[in-house]
């Protein structure tokens, strides 16, 4: 067998269990995934909420440009903010563009409730509701920019619940329903 220069030498105190025998034996001990695992994974992938914005960006931004583009865009945004607002002290500050929105879910037996939506890039773990209060309600107040937002509640980290108080809802294409909020 050709020695692998990158592999550290192993003392051969007992020829019965040489590195070669170990290597050959270990190569035979691989464990294959159980049948049906791929189907289970794909079902979960299709049921998972999409991340449309990031996916869209990833599709059109070549990876090698991405690291340079993000600081460049951040710099451009900073310049735009300075020009749009004027330099500090040059005029009255404009009111914040964000709008405060109160979210509420009645879930007295839940251990945790999260708000997951387009404004979190559909990532859980970003916005947690507080509760439950004495009446079993979970609440959160979030500042959102104007525009259309879609969201769901994630209860106990596994159950997706559409907002029962939402006036507008739409199917998310994966068998669930998103609440729609137009600000």
């Amino acid at each position, binding site marked *: 067998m050709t020695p692998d220069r*990158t*592999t*550290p030498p*192993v*003392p051969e*105190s*007992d020829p*019965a*269990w040489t*590195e070669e*025998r*170990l*290597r050959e*034996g*270990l*190569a*035979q*001990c*691989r*464990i*294959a*995934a*159980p049948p049906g*695992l*791929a189907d*289970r*994974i*794909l079902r*979960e*992938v*299709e049921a*998972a909420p999409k*991340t449309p914005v*990031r*996916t869209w*960006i*990833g*599709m059109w*931004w*070549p*990876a*090698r440009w991405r690291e340079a583009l993000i600081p460049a865009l951040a710099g451009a945004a900073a310049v735009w903010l300075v020009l749009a607002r004027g330099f500090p002290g040059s005029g009255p500050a404009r009111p914040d563009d964000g709008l405060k929105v109160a979210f509420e879910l009645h879930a007295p037996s839940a251990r945790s409730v999260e708000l997951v939506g387009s404004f979190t890039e*559909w*990532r859980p773990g970003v916005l947690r509701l507080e509760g439950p209060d004495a009446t079993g309600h979970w609440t959160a107040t979030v500042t959102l920019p104007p525009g259309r937002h879609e969201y769901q509640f994630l209860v106990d980290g596994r159950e997706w619940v559409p907002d029962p108080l939402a006036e507008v809802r739409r199917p998310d294409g994966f068998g669930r329903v998103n609440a729609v909020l137009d600000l």
Partner: protein
Amino acid sequence: MDEPTDADLVDRSRRGDIDAFAELVRRHQDRVYHLACRMTQSPADAADLTQETFLRAHRKLHRYREGHSVGNWLLAMCANLTKNMFRTRTRQRQADAGHAEMRVLQAPDRGHPDRPALEHALARLDPKERAAVTLHYMEGLSLPEVAEVLRIGLSATKMRVHRGLRHMQTWLEDRS
């Protein structure tokens, strides 16, 4: 017609082609599952971690860097998720000092004659050494690739592989 490369499949998956992502799952599920199985010594945990690895990969397709190995990218994600799982469970079990146990994966009835002994020796290894041995000797990754997947330095990788193998040799000699 030429078989699409992994990078082609990632590109098509980014554009919403679920069949392309299914092909990626079929190509890489065995390696990801094997690493998770060796790190956790639990087929049930390994199946969950494999599923979570591919779910996360699907969400983070935009973060895959062209030119890198898709297989190693998935293995790195799996190793990271497994480490996180260990951290969570360690916190949960801090009060329970006697929970340590050695789990040996069930060897198939027919297979390599050394397999039962090797499975016992692998099970006795420290999980960090077992992960390094698995990736280098069983999955065929070079030492720099193992270092990249486990997010550790090259010298630490060499040490884990070397120690892992030496420990296995010692135990196997004692056994025989």
